[in-house]
């Protein structure tokens, strides 16, 4: 009542009396409706004054009436309506009031939830209208209504989200709402994702293109080809991956593609970032044009093209792109590396060793751990493909060098070739493996210290032992890395003259990437100096005058290591000397003007024998007996009198990796690679497995593994090595142990099928490896083949077939008869042979006597090709062979099937049980007919043959049915067994082929044929999923066939899958498969093919 009075007052002056009366009456009506109406009335009166100011009196009254009507439906609706009116009406034309009310009203369906939604709708209206025009607003309302039919919560959420989203949007609002509207009908559950995606992604797209993108997405959604949210996110990412001025072009292309192949379009959007990572936009257009053409031809091939799955898509992209991908050249480089090393080297992208989490962290630096060479996945450093490839080759060669020239074969006690060894003189802990001679050689005081230390110190590797000799391990490691890399470069360039040009170019390129010497604190600068010298910079090297002598000494040491005769031990000796020289250099900033260019070749100063300083070198290594193994910067301890006390040292930081040399971890690599060799290489007790603690200790001392970040770490703060890393490392080492039977299981574990190798369970089960083309390696003992005897059926199928095809049977017999006798026939009338043919000789003499020109062809010889053939027929018994073939012109395979599901199941079961008593033929029946006809004829020909069927589900259940064993006589049971050939499960071809190959191997015959009859591509659980899995099955099958061929078996595949050309081409040679255009030809074609194959 209060609000009424207030309103009355403010309105009083502005309304005519009758209007006022109507207003008041309306108020009464509002309040009179239900018990809670007074609240609505109060709102009505409250709002009135505001509203009245915005509306002419007629419409003002109308407003009141509309409100009253709402109140009649639900007072709370009225409340919300009145409440938001003043604000809403500022943005709403009066003539839309009624529409507005109705839109809200339509959200209300009498339930509590719907009323909440409707209320919120009214409340949000002012906000919405701030950004939407009324048409958009109406559309949005319609969308909400449609959505509210599905879920009020979602609608209400969308309303809230919408308010926020629309603030950010421009003209694309309409398109946005249109997508939402479609979604509400088609797949309302995606709406949430769509709104989220819009909030996240649209901002990345050029404002002018957003509407168009949304329209594209709407079309996709309408066609049911995409999840709106994902498509929107993908689209936005795609657009933001191309230059802004090309976004519209990309959309144009996408629209064009949509017309040709709706399925391909989302794939295009998804792959865009990948593609743009490899080629320019113009090159992309070229690629796109190919894809579009493919899509127009066949939607499926278009899809795989844009999914970057088709070989062609990859190929074109590859041709266009200048970058080189490791995956494309992996086989090539791997073979190359194997040729160089002569060991079973693997090649993988660096990411795979990082994933193993065994200490390597840099995702794209080349590296090796002694058995696998890791290279970056893509190289796109140069403009041309050749240059990029050449870089790859240099990098691979350098990593191979580590293995070929023994970086990891470092032995602490092995003498170097060109230094007088300091290592034996270093005060070191004595271990069980330290030769007594060395211990005896040590000065007495050192010996005591060494023995004492030996109790605590045990090294896992010689490399660790070496690094332990240095107070500052990090510096030692860095020096050793440069020296060893430099040695390898020299050695490789000597051994492989052909690569020198590319190598020098790469070195030069690396040189240009190096930081300036004079920008670094002195010790780091000196290290940078070494790196530069190792990269063949001989002149223009910046060194401060006071350190020039040291620099020259270092360069000389480096030069003497970097020759082609030196070994890793020389690198170690060189490192000791350089390290010693470096410890004299404080790590201080030095003003740039103190640096001078020096030229290493200009001054032919008196060759100093570096070893004259041997004592000094040794001294710099001794000193801090307790601090050994500290990973942090060198902190002079109190007892290290020899060492200079250096004030204001900067923290020492390692130099940047030289990009082509990558990441060098000698300790870890040695640890891993010595696991592969005999265990007597190890310092520890032979045969005794390494413990977690040992490894942990080693890693903590090593500077190769970064544990927790340790910048600025104090000397006593040791790096924390995560336990997980140690576990991984142990696992990795276990894998390498030659005694471990599972050592072959590679890093590429098939994602869908976990688990390890299988074991044969009984004497009729066999395990086979499976080929994983992604890792280009076998998964050992991956499939279990169960051999089973086929049950026996009755003979009617065989009899029927033979009598139905009586004329064909006769034809085949005639054909085969012509093949058979050749086997035994002598070839006569030869100019040369085993012996005289009497008839010809008589003729010869008759001719001669009668004065005719006698013939010389008077010899005979046994037929060259003796017929000695063994054939194994391998029948596909997968479920798909149950498909009917259209003999009557009706195309459906299930014609005659009842509609009702229950009846259908009964029918299906009876159909299966019915077996051959069927009014139509299935693929498998045709297969059987072919086999019946052929085996009947083969029996006569006398060729050895076996008939096998295969099916199965999963890798542990490959079923291999024996219908007729090779060598088994063709008894009556064979046709009985043929009768029982029936569709079963999936098609894992690889193991079946391998098993059949094994069978053929056990037979002696001159030519062996593996004859496969199938109806489609290989598929099985974990063998043939979408995407890469499909390829997996095809490649395993291909590999199985390659194996067969290697064993002297000629494989042939006959398929009735008309789409068979695409994968058959991959699986088989061009000549060794045939795609039957019409399955009914099979019984005729089979004998013909057989004849061709075996003669």
């Amino acid at each position, binding site marked *: 009542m209060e609000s009424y009075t207030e309103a009355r007052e403010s309105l009083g002056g502005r309304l005519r009396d009758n209007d006022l009366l109507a207003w008041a009456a309306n108020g009464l009506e509002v309040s009179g409706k239900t018990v809670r109406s007074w609240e609505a009335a109060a709102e009505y009166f409250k709002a009135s004054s505001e509203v009245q100011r915005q509306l002419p009196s007629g419409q003002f009254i109308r407003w009141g009436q509309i409100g009253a009507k709402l109140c009649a439906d639900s007072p709370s609706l009225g409340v919300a309506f009145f409440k938001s009116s003043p604000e809403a009406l500022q943005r709403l034309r009066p003539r839309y009031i009624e529409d507005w009310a109705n839109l809200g009203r339509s959200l209300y369906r009498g339930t509590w939830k719907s009323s909440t939604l409707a209320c919120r709708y009214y409340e949000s209206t002012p906000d919405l209208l701030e950004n939407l025009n009324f048409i958009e607003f109406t559309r949005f309302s319609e969308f909400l209504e449609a959505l509210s039919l599905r879920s009020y919560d979602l609608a209400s959420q969308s309303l809230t989200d919408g308010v926020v989203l629309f603030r950010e949007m421009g003209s694309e609002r309409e398109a946005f709402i249109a997508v939402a509207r479609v979604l509400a009908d088609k797949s309302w559950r995606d709406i949430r994702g769509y709104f989220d995606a819009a909030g996240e992604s649209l901002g990345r797209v050029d404002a002018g293109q957003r509407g168009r993108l949304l329209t594209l997405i709407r079309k996709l959604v309408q066609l049911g080809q995409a999840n709106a949210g994902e498509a929107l996110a993908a689209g936005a990412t795609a657009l933001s991956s191309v230059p802004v001025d090309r976004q519209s072009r990309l959309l144009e292309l996408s629209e064009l593609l949509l017309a040709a192949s709706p399925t391909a379009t989302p794939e295009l959007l998804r792959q865009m970032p990948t593609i743009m990572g490899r080629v320019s936009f113009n090159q992309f257009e070229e690629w796109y044009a190919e894809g579009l053409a493919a899509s127009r031809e066949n939607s499926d091939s278009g899809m795989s093209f844009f999914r970057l799955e088709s070989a062609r898509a990859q190929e074109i992209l590859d041709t266009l792109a200048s970058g080189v991908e490791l995956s494309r050249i992996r086989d090539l480089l791997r073979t190359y590396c194997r*040729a160089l090393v002569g060991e079973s080297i693997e090649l993988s992208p660096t990411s795979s060793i990082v994933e193993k989490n065994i200490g390597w962290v840099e995702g794209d630096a080349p590296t090796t751990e002694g058995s696998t060479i890791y290279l970056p996945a893509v190289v796109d450093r140069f403009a041309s493909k050749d240059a990029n490839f050449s870089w790859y080759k240099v990098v691979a060669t350098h990593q191979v060098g580590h293995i070929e020239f023994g970086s990891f074969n470092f032995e602490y006690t092995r003498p170097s070739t060109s230094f007088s060894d300091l290592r034996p003189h270093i005060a070191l802990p004595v271990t069980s493996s330290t030769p007594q001679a060395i211990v005896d050689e040590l000065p007495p005081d050192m010996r005591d210290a060494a023995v004492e230390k030996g109790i605590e110190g045990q090294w896992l590797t010689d490399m660790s032992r070496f690094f332990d000799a240095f107070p500052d391990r990090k510096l030692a490691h860095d020096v050793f890395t440069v020296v060893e890399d430099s040695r390898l470069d020299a050695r490789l360039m000597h051994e*492989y003259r*052909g690569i020198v040009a590319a190598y020098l170019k790469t070195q030069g390129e690396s040189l240009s990437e190096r930081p300036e010497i004079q920008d670094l604190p002195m010790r780091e600068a000196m290290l940078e100096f070494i790196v530069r010298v190792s990269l063949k910079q001989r002149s223009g090297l910046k060194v401060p005058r006071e350190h020039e002598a040291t620099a020259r000494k270092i360069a000389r040491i480096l030069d003497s290591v970097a020759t082609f005769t030196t070994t890793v031990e020389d690198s170690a000796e060189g490192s000791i000397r350089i390290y010693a020289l470096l410890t004299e250099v404080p790590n201080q900033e030095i003003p740039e003007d103190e640096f001078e260019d020096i030229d290493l070749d200009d001054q032919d100063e008196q060759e100093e024998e570096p070893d004259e300083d041997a004592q000094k070198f040794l001294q710099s290594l001794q000193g801090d007996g307790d601090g050994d193994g500290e990973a942090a910067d060198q902190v002079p301890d109190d007892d290290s009198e020899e060492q200079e006390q250096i004030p204001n040292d900067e923290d020492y930081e390692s130099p940047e990796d030289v990009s082509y040399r990558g990441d060098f971890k000698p300790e870890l690599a040695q640890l891993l690679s010595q696991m592969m060799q005999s265990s007597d290489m190890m310092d520890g007790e032979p045969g005794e497995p390494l413990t977690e603690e040992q490894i942990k200790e080693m890693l903590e001392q090593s500077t190769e593994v970064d544990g927790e970040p340790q910048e600025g770490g104090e000397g006593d703060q040791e790096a924390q090595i995560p336990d997980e890393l140690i576990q991984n490392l142990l696992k990795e080492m276990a894998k390498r142990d030659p005694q471990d039977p599972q050592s072959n299981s590679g890093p590429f574990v098939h994602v869908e099928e976990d688990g390890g190798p299988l074991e044969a369970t009984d004497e009729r089960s066999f395990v086979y490896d499976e080929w994983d083309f992604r890792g280009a390696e076998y998964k050992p003992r991956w499939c279990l083949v169960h051999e089973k005897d086929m049950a026996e059926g009755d003979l009617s199928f065989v009899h029927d077939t033979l009598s139905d095809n009586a004329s064909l049977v006769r034809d085949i017999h005639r054909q085969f008869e012509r093949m058979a006798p050749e086997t035994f026939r002598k070839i006569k009338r030869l100019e040369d042979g*085993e*012996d*005289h043919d009497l008839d010809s000789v008589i003729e010869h003499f008759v001719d001669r006597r009668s004065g005719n020109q006698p013939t010389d062809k008077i010899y005979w010889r046994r037929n*060259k090709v003796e017929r000695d053939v063994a054939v194994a027929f391998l029948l596909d018994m997968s479920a798909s062979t149950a498909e009917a073939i259209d003999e009557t012109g009706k195309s459906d395979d299930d014609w005659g099937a009842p509609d009702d599901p229950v009846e259908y199941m009964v029918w299906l079961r009876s159909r299966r049980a019915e077996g051959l008593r069927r009014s139509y033929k299935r693929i498998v029946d045709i297969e059987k007919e072919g086999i019946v006809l052929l085996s009947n004829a083969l029996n006569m020909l006398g060729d050895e043959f076996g008939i096998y069927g295969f099916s199965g589900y999963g890798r542990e259940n490959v079923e291999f049915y024996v219908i007729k064993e090779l060598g088994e006589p063709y008894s009556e049971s064979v046709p009985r067994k043929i009768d029982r050939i029936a569709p079963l499960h999936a098609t894992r071809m690889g193991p079946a082929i391998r098993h059949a190959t094994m069978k053929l191997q056990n037979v002696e015959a001159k030519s062996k044929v593996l004859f496969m009859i199938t109806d489609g591509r290989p598929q099985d659980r974990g063998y043939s999923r979408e995407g890469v899995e499909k390829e997996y099955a095809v490649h395993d099958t291909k590999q199985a066939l390659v194996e067969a061929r290697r064993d002297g078996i000629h494989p042939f595949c006959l398929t009735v899958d008309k789409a068979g050309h695409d994968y058959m081409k991959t699986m088989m040679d061009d000549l060794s498969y045939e795609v039957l255009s019409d399955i009914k030809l099979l019984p005729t074609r089979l004998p013909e093919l057989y004849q061709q194959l075996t003669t």
Partner: protein
Amino acid sequence: MTQADTGFTETKVEEYYVQEEPFYIPHSDEIELFTAAYNEQIPVLLKGPTGTGKTRFVEHMAWLLSTQSKGTVRKHGKAEGIPLVTVACHEDLTASDLVGRFLIDTDGTRWSDGPLTRAVKAGGICYLDEVVEARKDTTVIIHSLTDHRRTLTIDKLGQMIEAADGFLMVISYNPGYQSATKDLKHSTRQRFVALEFNFPPPDIEKDIIIHESGCDEETAVQLAKLGEKVRNLGDYGLSEGASTRVLIYAGRLIKEGVAARRAAQVAVTWGITDDPQLQRSIDEVVTSIFP
């Protein structure tokens, strides 16, 4: 031996003597072993991949044994020694190709001895190269000649010939590439002592290449290195590594002025494999080794 004016040399198979010393660097003690086997009349089986010097070894031994046993003795102004009869076996080689056959003469037939029969009579070394390639019936003949009997039966003549003292059967085969069906039967192979041949180590191979091709040492070192690297691929798709022979060919081409990379490509890469992928990999090895 008759040296005709036509420029070629015509010799009866059983009168072929190796007169010049064939260049041969022994890998290990094969010369001593062969000499001992020859003196004891034990047949010899040479095993090894193609191009490892099996044939050259037999020639060398024929020469060496001739000079050792007979010295420089010449009869009727002709060279004398141990004749070397070499038969390259092939799929169609039958027993009669080895033993002999009747030929038609003006008035009837005339028997003509095959190479094996001639070697048996002349007391020479009969070298059956790649013996597993021959037809199975040939092995039957080999058997009687390679045990204590040392006889050759000629069915068609109804004759049995006892081998002359100097006769020795030498066969070679390559266990690598032949299929299982072409394996040598145990009954056959256990009549021989087997000498294994393999590729020489790089520094010996280098000397061989220098000697045989006449190229400079630098080239020879690189060729030997190439050979070694390519042979490393034996387990990875190459059925047969690069033979010393192809390396020598490459060396000769280089000596004639062909660019080293090209010479290695035509002589080695393309010669040993048809697999394009493998060819590319080997090409990369070639370009790494040769500037």
